[in-house]
């Protein structure tokens, strides 16, 4: 029997297990997937928790609901990959052999990377919302918070779901307005980027939205430390921003297992060919989702689009043919802007987010770089599609390759 081994059963790993079980003969190929946890978290839902729109039960399901029949599932922490031996070691000493390996171990928040972040105010006046623990702690804090400086800080690039911190401040504006205390809350968006986003048009559009909602932006801020005693964040250049409540998007890093395996860059992301999704040094290792270093967003939509590419290329590799699929970096992000409305961006390695309609040219129903009620429904619908279509590896009604039709240059 030949062996395909998948590390990580999050968004990307689960999709690949479903897709590959469909492709590979059961009597020729063993497929095994490994994860440390039994619960699957719908991470995009974390954004809604601090504002009481979702609770924990809205974002969790057992991982076992999503694995196809005929895949071996192992719940264990992965110790390391031995790429030269084609082996993976699990905690406790189990050795797994593979013919092909898919790395899908995602990224984790690493608050310990910034001095003073995970210190005496952690989960008292300082929170994250990228973990279930942080999101729920912040939800109870906001219930009784009296107001003051609400500082939202991105520690370092890259971080997953690049629009989530913006959505957070848009939601915060609406949340405190609806509670009749917006005048007591000063919202400050502190980012290492030079503006609200990276590319010119999206930066302008989102920057204007911040402005309209009376949210201050402090760009080019590279955090050096959090001063817990004086309640301020300080950057390397000496700029200081005082906070009453700090919401941090901590440094995102690949899992330590990647470093132990000697397969990571300085943030434990795995060097990967951005078109083929093959690991740079080993022909039988492929990388998908947040774990790779490909230069596009770390997002569920990217994991989804690239899963179709990986499915095709892995079959090419297995059957000894040249690769036929090439990933274009396609990302598609719904952005909540508060008050039941949202906007949408669609882009890839070469094309910045442009205005227009999506997915049907001229028709929509979604509007690119526009604020509309429909875009907000798109985001809510995404949760349903995530659980019922995406994780199971079924076809979604959107092309994996970015389309130019319907866009205005």
């Amino acid at each position, binding site marked *: 029997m030949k062996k395909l081994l998948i590390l990580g059963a999050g968004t990307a790993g689960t999709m690949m297990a479903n897709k590959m079980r469909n492709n590979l003969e059961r009597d020729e190929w063993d497929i095994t997937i490994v994860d440390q946890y039994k619960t699957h978290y719908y991470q995009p839902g974390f954004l809604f928790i601090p504002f009481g729109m979702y609770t924990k039960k809205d974002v969790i399901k057992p991982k076992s609901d999503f694995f196809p029949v005929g895949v071996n599932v192992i719940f264990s922490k992965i110790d390391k990959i031995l790429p030269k031996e084609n082996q993976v070691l699990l905690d406790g000493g189990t050795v797994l052999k593979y013919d092909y390996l898919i790395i899908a171990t995602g990224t984790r928040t690493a608050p310990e990377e910034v001095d003073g972040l995970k210190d005496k105010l952690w989960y008292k006046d300082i929170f994250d919302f990228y973990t279930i623990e942080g999101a729920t702690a912040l939800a109870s804090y906001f219930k009784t918070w009296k107001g003051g400086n609400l500082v939202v800080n991105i520690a370092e690039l*890259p971080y997953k779901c690049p629009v989530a911190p913006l959505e957070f401040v848009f939601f915060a504006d609406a949340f405190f307005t609806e509670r009749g205390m917006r005048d007591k809350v000063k919202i400050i968006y502190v980012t290492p980027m030079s503006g609200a*986003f990276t590319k010119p048009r999206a930066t302008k559009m989102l920057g204007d939205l911040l402005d309209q909602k009376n949210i201050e932006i402090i760009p*080019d801020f590279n955090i*050096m430390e959090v001063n817990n005693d004086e309640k301020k964040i300080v950057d*390397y*250049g000496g700029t200081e921003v005082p906070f009453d409540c700090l919401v941090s998007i901590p440094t995102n890093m690949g899992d330590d297992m990647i470093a132990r395996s000697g397969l990571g860059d300085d943030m434990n992301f795995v060097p990967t060919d951005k078109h083929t999704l093959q690991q740079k040094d080993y022909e039988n290792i492929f990388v998908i989702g947040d774990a790779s270093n490909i230069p596009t967003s770390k997002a569920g939509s990217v994991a989804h689009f690239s899963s179709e590419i990986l499915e095709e290329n892995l079959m090419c590799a297995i059957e000894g043919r040249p690769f036929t699929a090439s990933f274009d970096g396609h990302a598609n992000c719904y952005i909540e802007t508060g008050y039941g409305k949202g906007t949408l961006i669609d882009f890839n390695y070469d094309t910045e987010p442009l205005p227009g309609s999506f997915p049907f040219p001229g028709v929509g129903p979604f509007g690119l770089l526009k604020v509309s009620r429909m875009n907000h429904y798109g985001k809510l619908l995404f949760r349903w599609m995530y659980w019922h279509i995406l994780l199971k590896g079924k076809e979604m009604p959107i092309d994996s390759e970015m389309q130019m039709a319907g866009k205005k240059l």
Partner: protein
Amino acid sequence: MAIKTIAGVNVDVNEEGYMTDASQWNKEIAAGIAAEEGVELTDQHFELIDWIRNKVAVGDSLTIRAIGKSGIVDAKQFYKMFPGAPLKKATKIAGVPKPTSCI
């Protein structure tokens, strides 16, 4: 695309003043750009500039984290050497493209 005279030499630059042909770069030109940016170059600056040029030549992406781990300076010193916007200034002086952030 434009041509600019720096330290008495004509070099190709983009609309933001970043050099577009790395082979035209030399230490005098670096000093010329540095002067415009209000930076006076020391041996340590040149050591770091060499390091940056080598990184870019092999296709690595430049970050403050990576420079902090270069063994030449830490992030705080880096800010002191190129006040304000260190990564933008250092790359401009080193004659390499402005780093783009991919998120």
